[in-house]
């Protein structure tokens, strides 16, 4: 059983991925497929809302590493929001906050795409 799921919403031209559950080497391919599909559809403004993300391992972070250059090269970004403290700590340990836009909540992330 996979304890991970993704729901996708659209807010104008911004795509919001709501990730739930546990993101590890087993479930990372689901996130990868969703990101790839968005990029293929030329949707480059992406927010990953982590409010329901309970756990992340480095395989999950690897997915963000693999696509951020492509997305930014196309004028977009992958912004992350609503992380709980444990999940944020993993991003922090690996130095992500200096390279990725990690925001308190989704609205803030949406606003930062407008500015």
């Amino acid at each position, binding site marked *: 059983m996979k304890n991970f799921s993704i729901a996708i919403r659209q807010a104008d031209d911004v795509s919001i991925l709501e990730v739930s559950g546990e993101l*590890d080497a087993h479930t990372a391919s689901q996130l990868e497929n969703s990101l790839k599909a968005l990029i293929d559809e030329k949707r480059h403004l992406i927010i990953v809302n982590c409010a329901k993300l309970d*756990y992340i*391992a480095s*395989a999950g972070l690897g997915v963000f*590493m*693999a696509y951020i*250059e492509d997305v930014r090269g196309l004028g977009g970004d992958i912004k992350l929001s609503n992380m709980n403290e*444990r999940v944020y700590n993993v991003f922090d340990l690996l130095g992500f906050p200096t390279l990725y836009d990690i925001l308190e909540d989704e609205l803030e992330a949406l606003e930062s795409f407008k500015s």
Partner: protein
Amino acid sequence: MATKNIHKLTVKASTSQIARVRDFVAEHAQNIGLSPKDISEIKLAVDEAYTNIVKHAYKYANQHHVDIEIGFSNSELWISLLDEGESFDPNTYSEPDLVKRIKEKKRGGMGVYLIRKLMDSVHYSRKGHMNEIRMVKHL
């Protein structure tokens, strides 16, 4: 100090077993009264070590098995993962440069770094055909 209790789990070397491995160590860490922060750190360290075995030692060939042992004394909790795959030489490992990896669209290579950050000591050894990574958290 002598280890009082040792619990063992043997699982197939497959990413499908990661959650089971995490739950196994979390349950025992919880039983000895570790803090939620310590439990999260141990779960992640074990996840990374197990994932590295599946990926690098066995290269996703899932007919193999991994043994996980967890034990504790008054002063420490230790976890060992044992496999019979390709061994890992920690001397060839360097700290990941995130900027460079992102530019090169590379992923991975962060597990070993995380394990070292999360645990108080990490030791790799090979006895015969068996590789062991032993991770310790002081209590």
